[in-house]
């Protein structure tokens, strides 16, 4: 047995712990399960349907079990996803801080075995608590007549999600430089990645929804949890189930379980690779440059596949898809907008989301893969020692100029494909067929990435994050103050200031490039001015920072 798993069992499953956690698990599970089981089991037969002519209370165990299933699943999720993730994050961070990870790092065990040991050893008690709930699950399946195959699919995805959450927590514990912050960062990351990010699935980027267990639950289990004799779903339930039943990806329809496995598998792969590097040597960046380019490429393929139906046929999943099906006159658009502007607005939302995701990915990858001055120095000295004229372009220590250009190229090509798809589509009319619609966002993305790279490579963490905070967030805060002061009077000034931050520039640019959605020209604002300011500022910043970086490196 893996010694780290054995250690987890020894540490957390001593007889006293077994009794305490077992009792907690069995009492909480029995209380919640039986309460919902008995509640769901009671069924009232109305007077007009009963033989006696009076309302009758009959017992339907099948319905009780079906109602109790969701409660049981939530409790199992609480044990493994909530308690288990917290445990992995906090212990990894604590052990990193104390130096215990270094002991493990020094053992000749394969890093892969170490990762598995931490993933399954640390939450040993939580797995035991989960085991205690299994008899209830068996009862639920038999009495509730839930198909075994569907249940198997659900629990396969459930465990895949559990491992994903635990691995995320473990990687963050390994990566975050300040161990005290790690447990909080891990919790926030799990929330962000697997709770907030999936919400973007409602804005047409369907693949993001498949980072959780929900698609499989709604798509495979909910239809089998209907009360016996009532085989129709309510309106809301129908919508939810429809949303998850099949996933449009490029021109295919994919099953939610398959899609979830693929999505989670890709993330698991990336996290494993990161953890592997960190276990080998703590000072290695989380991703190598080729790995980062590969991950970015996969992200772009997923984005392309998810947005394909929207750009080619104007169809989208989630709330966006539902709103597109509405009658434009009943869509509740503000008076300032044209009645038929709903598709154009949806396009702006999707394009802005696309660019914001790209910005977030670029920021993450540049932060991780572009070497700080210390690492560059290391690379230069080493290459000098080995008699090489320069550091190999894909080495961790190599300057990231080429790397960011490749990332921006990939992103721009994908956006160009989507744009061409929309232009050539007969159903999508909300995209202006001009070259600047692709070139302008691509150019600003390149300037932003080059500025980030130059900042990363000449400053250490404080300088880099200070620069990002100052440039990306301060303009938005300034706009907030101006808006409170005089929204209408300051609107042009707000747009000009907001164009300085890439976060607010891209939505503006998308509105600027979209076909006119306003019925009358707005005398208060001129988007072309703010767009010019944004483009020129980003260009100046990229050039200025690149020059200062060049000078610093030359020194």
């Amino acid at each position, binding site marked *: 047995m893996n010694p780290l798993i054995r250690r987890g069992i*020894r540490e957390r499953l001593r007889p006293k712990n077994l009794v305490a956690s077992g009792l907690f698990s069995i009492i909480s599970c029995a209380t919640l399960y039986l309460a919902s089981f008995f509640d769901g089991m009671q069924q009232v037969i109305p007077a007009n349907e009963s033989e006696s002519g009076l309302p009758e209370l009959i017992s339907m165990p099948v319905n009780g079990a079906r109602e109790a299933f969701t409660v049981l699943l939530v409790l199992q999720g609480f044990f493994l996803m909530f308690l288990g993730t917290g445990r992995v994050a906090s212990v990894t961070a604590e052990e990193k801080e104390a130096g215990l990870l270094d002991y493990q790092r020094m053992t*000749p065990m394969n890093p892969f075995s170490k990762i598995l040991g931490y993933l399954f050893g640390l939450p040993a008690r939580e797995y035991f608590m989960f085991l205690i709930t299994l008899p209830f699950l068996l009862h639920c399946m038999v009495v509730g007549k839930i198909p075994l195959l569907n249940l198997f699919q659900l629990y396969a995805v459930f465990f895949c999600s559990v491992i994903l959450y635990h691995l995320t927590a473990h990687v963050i514990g390994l990566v975050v430089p300040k161990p005290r912050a790690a447990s909080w960062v891990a919790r926030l990351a799990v929330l962000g990645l697997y709770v907030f990010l999936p919400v973007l699935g409602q804005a047409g980027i369907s693949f993001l929804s498949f980072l959780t267990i929900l698609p499989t639950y709604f798509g495979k289990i909910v239809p089998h949890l209907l009360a016996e004799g009532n085989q129709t779903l309510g309106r809301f339930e129908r919508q939810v189930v429809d949303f998850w039943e099949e996933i449009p990806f490029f021109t295919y329809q994919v099953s939610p379980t398959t899609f979830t496995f693929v999505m989670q598998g890709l993330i698991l792969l990336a996290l494993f690779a990161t953890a592997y590097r960190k276990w080998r040597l703590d000072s290695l960046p989380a991703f190598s440059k080729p790995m980062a380019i590969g991950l970015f490429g996969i992200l772009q393929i997923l984005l392309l596949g998810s947005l394909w139906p929207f750009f080619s046929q104007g169809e989208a999943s989630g709330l966006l898809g539902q709103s597109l099906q509405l009658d434009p006159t009943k869509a509740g658009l503000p008076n300032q907008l044209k009645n038929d502007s709903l598709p154009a607005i949806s396009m702006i939302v999707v394009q802005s989301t696309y660019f914001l995701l790209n910005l977030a990915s670029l920021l993450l990858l540049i932060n991780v893969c572009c070497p700080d001055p*210390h690492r560059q120095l290391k690379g230069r000295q080493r290459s000098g020692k080995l008699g090489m004229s320069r550091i190999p372009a894909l080495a961790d220590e190599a300057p990231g100029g080429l790397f960011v250009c490749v990332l921006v190229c990939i992103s721009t090509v994908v956006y160009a494909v989507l744009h061409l798809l929309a232009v050539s589509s007969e159903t999508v009319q909300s995209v202006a067929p001009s070259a600047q619609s692709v070139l302008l966002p691509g150019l600003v993305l390149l300037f932003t990435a080059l500025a980030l790279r130059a900042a990363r490579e000449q400053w250490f963490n404080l300088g880099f994050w200070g620069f990002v905070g100052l440039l990306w967030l301060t303009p938005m805060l300034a706009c907030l103050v101006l808006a409170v002061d005089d929204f209408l009077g300051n609107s042009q000034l707000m747009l000009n200031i907001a164009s300085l931050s890439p976060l607010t520039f891209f939505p503006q640019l998308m509105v600027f490039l979209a076909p006119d959605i306003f019925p009358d020209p707005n005398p208060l604002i001129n988007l072309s001015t703010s767009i010019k300011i944004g483009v020129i500022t980003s260009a100046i910043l990229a050039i200025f920072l690149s020059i200062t970086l060049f000078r610093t490196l030359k020194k």
Partner: protein
Amino acid sequence: MIEVKDLKLHYGDFVAVNQLTFSVKPGSIYGLIGPNGAGKTSAIKAIATLLEPTFGDILVEGISVLHQPEQARGVLGYMPDFPPIYEDLKVWEFCDLFAQAYGLSGEEKQAKVLQSLHATGLKEQMHDLCKTLSRGMRQRALLAKTLVHEPSVLLLDEPAANLDPKSRIDLRNILKKLAGDGKTILISSHILSEIEDTCDSLGFMRDGRMALSGTLDEISRQKDRATHLKIHLLEPHPALREVISKIPSLSQVEEITTCKTKFRVSLDGGEKEASQALAKLVETGVPVSEFIFQKPRVEELFLELESAPKEREKK
């Protein structure tokens, strides 16, 4: 064998270790000493594969720590300056975990665990939970864990920091035995007397650099320091100073006490010169009752080095 060549380590723009070069032979104990922040722990961590150097080479048993860290880890035993342990494991389980992680199994594993617990005097506490151990006991548990896979190179950062006098003597004996078995041992410590008693050679680190390195005698010579002899007489000898002035290797006679029978004399040379001087004294009829060859004290050298002006290099 440990070989460190031109090692350089940066933390951001701070140079923690700069052009550090030294080697430790198999079967010897090398002590790294220096004030806080001198770079001792960073250097040990770099040798232990836990910090990636900016520049330089580190070889342990001929394996490059930079290029083959996994292989190097197999021959290394590292004990950090703070004794973190798995609080909820029993002492034997703690050692067992690492024995297994280093690839031991079955009876061999059990034997090695018991052996390391026995060597560190923890056999009686083997069934106690680690969290119930005192700091000194934790240090022993950590040493037991470090020894369990019988590494050929031991890196011990402040190994005696929390130990009581008895445990320190035990530790010294353990280390000497291990060195006798051919292991290469590198120790960093603030306890200078401990280093003096335990180590065969020393390295004085300061501001990230190796200020002095070698055996105590070699260092003395590097520092151009005179070695001293302590001479006790049975009774006062009126011509002692005259006799000493005629022996070329001796100079500077100081009276240690007022009874004119205990003296401290500077010696220019090593043990050979001391032996010749003793022969000459006896030959001229000086009633020598005790003749002690006084090596330079590590403490004195350390203080001397400490008082020199600082020159921490920044990038």
